[in-house]
């Protein structure tokens, strides 16, 4: 096993991850901040409270989940170890040979893909980013953007290695190539495996979010849908799940919501649905001093903002989870010390804690984990230990410390103790002349001030009328707004139960939410009653009912290649909403 230092030094020297990752992440962090400002002021507080509540009573909520699953006919399974998880899923798959898997970080954690392939199963990673990194063979470098370390040229080379003949490296063409491969696989496979972002205890529904439509296809597999998720992913009620939704996509990808937010309920007739909850040490974490880390909703905001992640990339961590959250959770999940040096992969700048939407004190935890690792003898060589002992004895007394400081001064600065730039006069009041700042340089777009500006940009003035706000936000997502419906061949026409103005989303319930007809349509047309528009996602709680539900936010899309948005992955490029204008 190599150390983080060895891996990071090698990545930096050979792959230069910062060149690709830093510009993307700088923009993403700014955009996320702007997107979160559109959420209700208490969104983070409510999301954090919903997660903290769940961690405080995991077993109680699991009892509710189990009862509701029974009512719905969903299988409830619990895996103590990664090995158990793999065994349970192999058993559930039975004689299934071709399996379509969508993104799951817990899947990475238990090594699901490799284990199932070793067992002779033809498994396809159906998320575009995962499909690409699967060919590369080094694993995802980010929890929501697995291929963010690869530029389009590299991706084209990798796809060519997989047999693709693509004339150029246009992200649209590259994304659609993978879509077609995945789409064909879904035509003929035996089961779908997906993850889950939350499991609602009160109703026994599974909240899963995605952009591409591959989860829609996997979850609606006619025979078998298996969900793998972490034990901690339960949440008390729909209000809690919606609170998570309000911060998850803005923090992860600077979207108001992802294209699809599923609330999966009863399996379809003839379909089996099973959920495997992986413990793998989570119960122990919940009972210990790091319990707050289980609040994590896997948005990846901490790694987006982390300068160490940007400098050395996600693969340097050598663990299924990367960035600050990875550096905290990997040593807690694997107690054998293999990831004990990851907490050192931080300058403790605190950006992770600042951006975390559920209030996890990540950089404080990194500090505590460093002490734990030293106490357990997992880090800190004998030489380092002796050095710190000597240091502490020196700095315990002022005289010895002064002497050490003087020696250090000579050692550190040598002859040129004060390097002063040439041209500075001896007069302390004369400053070297400044040049003009490079205002137009691409990397010099000043960050927005920390306090929201008093003057809002004109396009950011929210119309008071909810229907107008809905129109504005939906149009920004590329949704077609119609005053009246004119039939077209290939339309799938459904009625929305409600809509969200701030995100431009529509809520479909029951039959209207049936995934395959929506994805198979040339155009999806949604009729919307303006009286049912709420301002924020949290306003949907009263409309969600107890059945299968789907929140649609723009057409299916991906940004897995250089974060460039490509619309129309699985499913139509066109989403139209019929919203009659009401005379004032």
């Amino acid at each position, binding site marked *: 096993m190599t150390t983080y230092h060895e891996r990071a030094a090698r990545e930096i020297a050979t792959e230069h991850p910062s060149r690709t990752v830093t510009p993307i992440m700088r923009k993403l962090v700014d955009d996320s901040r702007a997107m979160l400002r559109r959420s209700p002021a208490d969104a983070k507080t409510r999301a954090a409270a919903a997660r903290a509540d769940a961690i405080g009573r995991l077993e109680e909520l699991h009892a509710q989940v189990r009862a509701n699953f029974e009512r719905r006919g969903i299988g409830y399974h619990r895996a103590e170890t990664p090995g158990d998880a793999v065994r349970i899923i192999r058993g559930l798959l039975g004689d299934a040979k071709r399996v379509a898997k969508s993104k799951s970080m817990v899947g990475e954690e238990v090594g699901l893909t490799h284990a199932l392939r070793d067992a002779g199963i033809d498994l396809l990673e159906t998320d575009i980013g995962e499909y690409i990194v699967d060919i590369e063979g080094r694993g995802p470098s980010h929890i929501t953007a697995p291929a963010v370390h690869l530029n389009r040229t590299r991706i084209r080379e990798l796809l060519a290695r997989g047999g693709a003949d693509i004339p150029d490296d246009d992200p649209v063409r590259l994304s659609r190539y993978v879509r077609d491969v995945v789409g064909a696989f879904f035509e003929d496979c035996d089961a779908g495996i997906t993850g889950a972002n939350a499991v609602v205890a009160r109703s026994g529904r599974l909240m899963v979010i995605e952009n591409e439509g591959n989860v829609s296809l996997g979850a609606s597999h006619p025979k078998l849908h298996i969900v793998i998720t972490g034990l901690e992913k339960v949440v008390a009620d729909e209000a809690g799940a919606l609170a998570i939704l309000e911060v998850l996509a803005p923090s992860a990808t600077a979207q108001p919501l992802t294209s699809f937010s599923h609330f999966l309920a009863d399996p379809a007739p003839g379909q089996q649905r099973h959920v495997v909850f992986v413990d793998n040490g989570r119960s122990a974490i919940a009972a210990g001093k790091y319990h707050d880390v289980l609040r994590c909703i896997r948005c990846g905001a901490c790694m987006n903002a982390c300068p160490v992640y940007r400098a050395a990339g996600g693969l340097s961590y050598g663990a299924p989870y990367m960035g600050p959250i990875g550096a905290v959770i990997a040593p807690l999940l694997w107690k054998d010390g293999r990831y004990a040096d990851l907490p050192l992969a931080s300058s403790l700048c605190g950006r992770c804690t600042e951006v975390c939407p559920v209030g996890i004190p990540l950089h404080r935890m990194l500090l505590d984990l460093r002490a734990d690792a030293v106490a357990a003898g997992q880090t800190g060589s004998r030489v380092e230990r002796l050095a710190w002992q000597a240091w502490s004895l020196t700095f315990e007394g002022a005289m010895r410390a002064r002497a050490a400081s003087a020696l250090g001064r000579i050692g550190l600065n040598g002859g040129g103790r004060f390097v002063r730039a040439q041209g500075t006069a001896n007069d302390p009041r004369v400053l070297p002349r400044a040049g003009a700042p490079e205002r137009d340089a691409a990397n010099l777009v000043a960050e927005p001030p*920390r306090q929201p500006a008093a003057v809002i940009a004109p396009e950011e003035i929210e119309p008071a009328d909810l229907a107008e706000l809905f129109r504005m936000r939906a149009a920004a997502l590329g949704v077609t707004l119609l005053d009246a419906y004119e039939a077209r061949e290939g339309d799938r026409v459904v009625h929305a139960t409600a809509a969200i103005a701030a995100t431009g989303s529509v809520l479909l319930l029951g039959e209207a939410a049936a995934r395959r007809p929506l994805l198979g349509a040339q155009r999806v047309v949604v009729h919307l009653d303006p009286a049912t528009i709420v301002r924020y996602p949290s306003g949907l709680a009263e409309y969600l009912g107890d059945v299968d539900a789907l929140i649609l936010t723009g057409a299916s899309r991906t940004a897995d290649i250089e974060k460039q948005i490509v619309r129309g992955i699985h499913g139509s490029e066109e989403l139209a909403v019929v919203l009659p204008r009401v005379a004032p």
Partner: protein
Amino acid sequence: MARVALFDPCYLGALRPTDAFHAKRVLEALGDEVTLIDGRCCGQPAYNSGFRGEAKRVSLSLLREARHHDVVVTASGSCTSMVTHFVPGLFEGTKREGAARIAGRFREFTAYVAGHPNLDRLALMLEGTVVYHDSCHMRNELGGTDTVLGLLAKVELLEVRRLAHEAECCGFGGAFTVKLPEVAAVMMTAKLDDIAASGAKVVVSADFSCLAHLESGARGTGQRMETWTVAELLARALG
């Protein structure tokens, strides 16, 4: 007139011994009577490396020295954050309460000066251009960014520029720089690029540790740049 102690942190004493003198000059100009605490360390280097026993031993020595004073002005955001946020947690029970009581007397230099009742008596003037480097401890642990900028704004004729990616760490982080030098260098290079793009030839920060790190990098690349603490800038502006 207040009687204050000025804590000259270990690394500052080693790397830029003149800085305590600058801070002392500013405090005296405000009318304070200043006692120097030097040759002490808050324990942060060992603490950040996970060696808490050693950090405790060293910080105890600082607390013992500090207990004789009502106010301990500290010319480093990083050390202030260590003492006020982390040192009490190294002790148990009543000792923790005692440690917290003493730690509560530590004031970061710029915050102390900005809140000083005699601040407006100083005629601060310095003609020229500097760029402000916001240290992570000032920004994220102490929330003192606006205070520093407000203080710099009081210096007449001084143009204070802001860095393009002000919230990004410069890559210092104490032991981090020693343990992961390649990673620290990537971060430092990005910061030096932003400093160069600002056009200013003087970088000002409330934390000298960042400045020492950046200065060593600038020396390596031949970038022309001076580094001043806020204390040094204010002392120069006193005239």
